[in-house]
């Protein structure tokens, strides 16, 4: 188990109902996509937030990553919808 800081933004934050949390993630969870799938099992808020994986993006330690990125060594993982700034 590794403790990771998870941060949520915008629609993902609203659906989960939390801006951030620290969770013990099992060692069997290796990628960002696996982490999202594992989070979905935590409750219906999470299932709702991740219901359409195509519109959830992620960043590891404040850098954009793809779903197959490995989470080993990550301090901070963020989930959010596609950006709409500018």
């Amino acid at each position, binding site marked *: 188990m590794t403790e990771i800081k998870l941060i949520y933004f915008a629609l993902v934050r609203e659906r989960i109902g939390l801006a951030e949390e620290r969770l013990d993630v099992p060692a069997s969870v290796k990628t960002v996509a696996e982490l999202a799938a594992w989070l979905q099992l935590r409750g219906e808020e999470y299932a709702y937030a991740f219901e359409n994986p195509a519109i959830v993006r992620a960043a590891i330690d404040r850098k954009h990553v793809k779903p197959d990125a490995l989470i080993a060594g990550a301090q901070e993982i963020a989930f959010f*919808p596609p950006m709409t700034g*500018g």
Partner: protein
Amino acid sequence: MEPRIVFRVQAEPFDITKEIDALAGLGDDVGAVTSFTGYCRSEGGRLLALELEHYPGMAEEEIGRVVQEAVTRWPLTGLTVIHRFGMMRPGDGIVLVATASSHRLAAFEAAEFLMDYLKTRAPFWKKEHRADGSSGEWVEAKELDDQAASRWQTSI
């Protein structure tokens, strides 16, 4: 000479004239300054405001990466990017990109590149606040923005 790079993420409004004058005053070799300002609009009176959420830390770092790419690709004398967060009313400036160069082509292209990349990579999200008081939606990302960014073909 190294280009003068300024980028900020802030809640406060920005002064476009001041920012452009700062770039124009960078020296005798500045022959062109271009700027783009993105404003909050009301969509025909439907919206009261747009609320900009951002990822503190990553927003600055990501803009920094995009800015570095721009000064690597174009011969710029200076470059300014300011992105605001918080509550914006119709008419408020949300984002400012300004570039200075000896010639207009580099200034125009770099500014366009910066905006295309900020739209798709900088971690900001807009939420609508509606004039009729109903709960506003999060603005959805446009595929058009992804297409605009993909034409520059960079590795970032």
